[in-house]
């Protein structure tokens, strides 16, 4: 079919309106139910931070079943010894915490940290990318879900949506936050508060004019501008407080500290997502020391810095640590582990009923292992998140159904007091 340029542009314009209108309706306008907010004003203070370990962490090295000899038989070179020299942190006589996670052990001791063991996705995939996608969409088995569950969660939070209400740490927006709601992202780093050309009014004015529409690019631009203005103020305050220190190598602990500062400065921040890589330990995983130990040490110190930095806000915060699946029960031929199934999920926060291991432990005998090779999954990851959403974020059943369209009919762990 031939068209001239004028007709074509008209046709394109009609496409444009239709394909982008649904996006334009959302943005950060009024939320769903202001009544809920009036009834529970403390809802605005509730925060939920999700940390994703990309690459599938070996949960059996994080929360170690040292009470079962089969664990040591299966892992001749990478098991964490339970003798006194190994400094494994005993949790309940059967499970112990990897010694490199000593940074978070005080949180276990003060009963604000719990682990749901043998937790994971009902979908059996051992593909990192499918499993991450399922966990981020919240729809195991359905890879074509267009949005992430944290984006849907944002959509059901009551009240006016501020531009920094949902914050993703990093230069790209991960699937978990993709969707119709606008989400801000920021790469926390040494230079994160450096001025940009766009901060100059004449540049800003020119681009405000260019990106004033409600197409996807304009929305991203507008969201970026709004959030940047707020976050730059927050970071500037932080800089002043931290000034005088020599620049240090930037690690997760620094980002975590900065994130805590941002949250303290900006009461609008409620949902945060961040991710860490480096867990795919097929080779030379190590035991008390080594590759995995090094990564866990960074994670533990970062979480500890985050909790300390949050101060009183920790009481209104839940921090969840998750990974796409666990790893094989037996070590492989290279002192590593391959892709597995069940894993340990972390939940921490001031109001969390911690100091206990949650979930039903399936056992490690051959017949109890999933496909006779991996820790089985006895708790659907969605039931853990749902519990947090219900009891911490105080979501109703309708809102919960929006976040997880297919709520699993499995018992929820007891996560809160």
């Amino acid at each position, binding site marked *: 079919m031939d068209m001239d340029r004028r007709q074509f542009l008209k046709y394109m314009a009609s496409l444009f309106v239709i394909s982008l209108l649904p996006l334009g309706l959302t943005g950060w306008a009024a939320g769903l139910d202001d009544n809920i907010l009036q009834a529970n004003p403390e809802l605005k203070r509730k925060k939920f931070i999700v940390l994703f370990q990309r690459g599938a962490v070996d949960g059996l090295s994080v929360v170690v079943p040292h009470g079962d000899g089969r664990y040591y038989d299966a892992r001749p070179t990478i098991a964490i010894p339970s003798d006194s020299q190994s400094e494994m942190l005993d949790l309940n006589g059967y499970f112990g915490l990897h010694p490199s996670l000593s940074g978070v052990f005080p949180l276990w001791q003060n009963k604000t940290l719990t682990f749901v063991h043998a937790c994971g996705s009902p979908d059996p995939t051992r593909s990192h990318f499918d499993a991450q996608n399922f966990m981020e969409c919240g729809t195991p088995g359905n890879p074509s879900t267009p949005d992430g569950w944290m984006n849907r969660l944002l959509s059901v939070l009551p009240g006016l949506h501020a531009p920094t209400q949902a914050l993703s740490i990093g230069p790209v927006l991960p699937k978990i936050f993709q969707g119709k709601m606008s989400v801000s992202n920021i790469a926390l780093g040494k230079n994160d508060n450096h001025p940009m050309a766009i901060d100059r009014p004449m540049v800003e004015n020119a681009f405000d004019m260019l990106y004033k529409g409600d197409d*996807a690019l304009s929305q991203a631009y507008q969201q970026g501008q709004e959030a940047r203005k707020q976050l730059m103020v927050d970071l500037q305050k932080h800089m002043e407080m931290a000034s005088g220190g020599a620049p240090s190598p930037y690690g997760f602990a620094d980002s975590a500290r900065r994130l805590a500062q941002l949250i303290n400065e900006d009461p609008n921040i409620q949902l945060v997502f961040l991710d860490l890589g480096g867990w795919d330990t097929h080779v030379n995983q190590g035991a008390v020391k080594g590759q995995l130990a090094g990564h866990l040490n960074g994670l533990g110190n970062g979480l500890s810095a985050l909790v300390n930095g949050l101060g009183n806000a920790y009481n209104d915060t839940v921090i969840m640590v998750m990974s796409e699946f666990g790893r094989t029960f037996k070590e492989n031929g290279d002192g590593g582990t391959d892709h597995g199934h069940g894993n340990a999920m972390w939940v921490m926060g001031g109001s969390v009923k911690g100091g206990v291991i949650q979930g039903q432990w399936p056992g490690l005998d051959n017949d109890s292992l999933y496909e006779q090779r991996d820790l089985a999954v006895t708790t659907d990851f969605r039931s853990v998140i749902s519990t947090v959403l219900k009891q911490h974020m105080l979501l109703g059943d309708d809102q919960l159904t929006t976040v997880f369209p297919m709520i699993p009919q499995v018992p929820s762990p007891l996560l809160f007091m």
Partner: protein
Amino acid sequence: MRRILLSTVSCILVLFQPAVFAIEMPSEFKALHVLNRLGFGPSPGDIKRVDDMGIDNYIKQQLHPENIPLPDSLTQQLNSLSTYSLGFDELTEEYGPPPRVNGQRPDPEVVKAQRKKSQIIVQEAIQARLMQAIESPRQLQELLVDFWYNHFNVFAQKELDRLWIGDYERNAIRPYVLGRFRDLLGATAKHPAMLFYLDNWQNVDPNSFKNARKAKGLNENYARELMELHTLGVNGGYTQDDVIALAKILTGWGFHGKQRGDTQVSFDFEFNPRRHDPNDQVFLGQTISGGGQEEVEAALDVLARSPQTAQHICYQLAQFFVSDAPDPQLVSQLAQVYESTDGDIRSILEALFKSSQFWDGKNYQAKFKTPFQYVVSVIRASGQQVTNYRPLMGMLQQLGEPMYGCFSPDGYKNTQAAWLNPDGMLRRINFATAIGFGRVNINDDQFPVSEDDLLSVYDHQFSASTMQAVDAALPRLRAVVLLGSPEMMKK
């Protein structure tokens, strides 16, 4: 009421039209479309060049890069990179881990210094990639290098891979980007960069080689990604048993680090029959008889010939070249070409560039550029010569796409969902502003970009709303607005 009716009608039209018949884009858009889609966007003079030779001839020419001469200036710049033309052994020798002397481990300080020294290889590989993307007239080839590198991704910062990513791209990817898929697959499968990255060099039959100090068992990593990412695709119908069977077939397929004399260590591809599982394997329903290296070749043949692989590869090509959610009909058409030509990439692309979907008006300006594509296209449009690549590397880092820096084996994505985000939009605009003002330290004599030049480089194909914002801006900001406009961010 009338408006509602109208929009309902157009809604219905829009919903049903693409499935029934495509609306071909007007001819004045076509030159820009091919420059955007077969390359990194136009440089000054490119539109006229395409107009003069005709769209079809341009495509034909791009499909045969071997017939397009490289400018001397580019060849000279590439040759001036001290590590770019070094061979694999030379790189390893000069920059690799220091050998043991008299059986003693080398001093950790020496190892550290050597590791630091080797970073120049990554730096120069990045420079070479950017340089060629910006300046090479073989634009389609450069775009395909990016596509296939991501398909067969190797992360540069995994220890020894630092030494090898440049060689990997030059010898395992570049020569095959328009060739047979099986050759590309085979070249990546044999390169130590891949074997190290996905651990297959340590994949060993536990029963056959009991005396190995370190590597002593099966490792599924490469076997799984070889099927999931490189060939069949995650829904390609394989099972965990197939992963294990392929891992067993791949035992002994690796490289061997040899000390040569007192001062050299070399790593060469090697099939080691002593590490190999000699049994027959049932792989994807076929029995592969126990033997040696030929088992791997046979398995790669099976994978490359599989209809699932054809489907998977063609989906990815259609997504990269046409739209984020490509028409399934186009994918299956291309898959037929794949199957009838035994996976000839050039033939598949030839069909793709002739397809009605490629020329469908709704796919014009429908792809959001990756950070790499955006940065290169801005430089090309500006007509600036780059002598210092560091600011561009930094920009890619800021935008979340550091070159050779994708940690996981699936490589960088090329969809709008992956790259459009608030922070990224502001950073792109920041970059556009700095380039437009001539304020990035990419060479010694920067100049502000002129609005008129940009308009002509892009054949005046900017929308009315962009031109409205350009006209409203201060004169010295007009080029900046164009460089940061949707027409530059998309293609």
